[in-house]
C-alpha cells in the first residue's frame, strides 16, 4: 500500500524555528543569522558591527562552532552577552540548538542578536532558526565562483557581505560580475562590499542593519 505523504523533511525544525521567532518577537529582539565559509570573517564582522552599535543598540551573540569557544571568548571580552554552542560534529545550527541557547541569554538586555552559524556554505541554508534576517559573508580570497557552486545559499539570503575588499588588487575576484550573478537569482538581495580590517564600507552595512532592526519595533 502506498501512502502519499508530501511533507517537507525539515518541517519539525521549522516548527521549532517558529517558536523561537515568537519568543524573539515577544522580547522585541531582532535576530540575524550570519552564515559563511570558514575564515570569511563572521566573528570579525560581529565584533566590528558591535563596536559601531555602541550606545545605539544593545547586542547579543550566539556563537556556533563544531568545537572550541575561541570566538565566544573574543566576543565576551567586549562585554557583550554571548553563549557558545558546540554542535559536536554537526555542520550547521538548527532551531532546537537556538531554542536552548536563548534560555541562557539575558533576553531583556538584547535588541539585536547575532547568530554566528557554523562555517559552511551548504547546510546552514536549509535550517531555519527563527531569525529575521539571513546574512551571508563571502570574502574575496575564496574567489568569485561560489554562487555557481552554492546557489541555494545565495538564493536564500537577505544580504550578501563581500568582506576583505582591501585584498581585491591581489585576488581573482570580479566585484561587478559577482554582484550581477548574485542579483540574477536573488533580485531583492542587499550587497555590501566592505573590509573589517580597514573599516571601509562598514558604516553602510551598519546603517542598513539598524534600519532593518527598527522596522521590527515600529
Amino acid at each position, binding site marked *: *500500500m*502506498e*501512502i502519499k505523504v*508530501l*511533507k517537507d523533511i525539515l518541517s519539525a525544525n521549522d516548527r521549532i524555528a517558529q517558536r523561537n521567532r515568537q519568543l524573539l518577537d515577544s522580547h522585541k529582539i531582532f535576530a540575524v543569522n550570519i552564515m559563511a565559509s570558514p575564515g570569511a570573517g563572521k566573528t570579525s564582522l560581529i565584533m566590528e558591527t558591535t563596536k559601531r552599535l555602541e550606545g545605539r543598540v544593545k547586542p547579543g551573540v550566539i556563537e556556533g562552532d563544531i568545537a572550541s569557544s575561541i570566538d565566544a571568548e573574543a566576543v565576551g571580552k567586549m562585554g557583550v552577552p554571548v553563549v557558545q554552542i558546540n554542535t559536536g560534529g554537526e555542520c550547521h545550527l538548527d532551531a532546537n540548538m537556538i531554542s536552548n541557547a536563548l534560555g541562557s541569554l539575558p533576553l531583556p538586555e538584547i535588541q539585536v542578536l547575532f547568530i554566528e552559524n557554523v562555517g559552511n556554505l551548504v547546510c546552514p541554508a*536549509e535550517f531555519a532558526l527563527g531569525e529575521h534576517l539571513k546574512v551571508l559573508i563571502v570574502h574575496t580570497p575564496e574567489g568569485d565562483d561560489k554562487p*555557481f557552486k552554492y*546557489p541555494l545559499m545565495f538564493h536564500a539570503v537577505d544580504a550578501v557581505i563581500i568582506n576583505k575588499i582591501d585584498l581585491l588588487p591581489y585576488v581573482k575576484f570580479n566585484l561587478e560580475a559577482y554582484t550581477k550573478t548574485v*542579483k*540574477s537569482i536573488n533580485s531583492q538581495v542587499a550587497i555590501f562590499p566592505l573590509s573589517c580590517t580597514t573599516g571601509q564600507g562598514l558604516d553602510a552595512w551598519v546603517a542598513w542593519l539598524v534600519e532593518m532592526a527598527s522596522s521590527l519595533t515600529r
Partner: protein
Amino acid sequence: MHELSVTQSMLDIVLEQAKRAEARRVARINLIIGEMTGVVGDSVSFYLDILSKGTIAEGAAVNIKSIPATAKCRKCGSIFELGEHDWTCPACQGDSFEIVGGPELFVDSIEVE
C-alpha cells in the same frame, strides 16, 4: 554533510506516517530532493541503514527523485537549468531569474505492508 540530520528528520516523518496507517513494515521510501540542497542520495541510504535498525523501516528501499536546479527568466519566461559557470538566459540573454526547481526536500510517499 547534513545528511545525518536530514535522514533522521525523514525517518521520523516516515515512522509517524507508517504508525498512523498501522503498517507492519515500510518497504519503500520515495523522496524528492532538489539538486540545490546538496543532499547526497547515497549518504541518505547509508544513514538510513544505521538509523532505522530496530524500527519497522529497517531494510526499506529508498527511491530518490532528483530535481535539477531550474530557473525561469523574468524577461522572456524561458525555463532552463542553471549552469555551473554562467547564469544567462539561453533564449534572450536575460540576467534576472526566479528559481523554480532545486530547493525541494520532501518525503513524497511511502510504501507499507
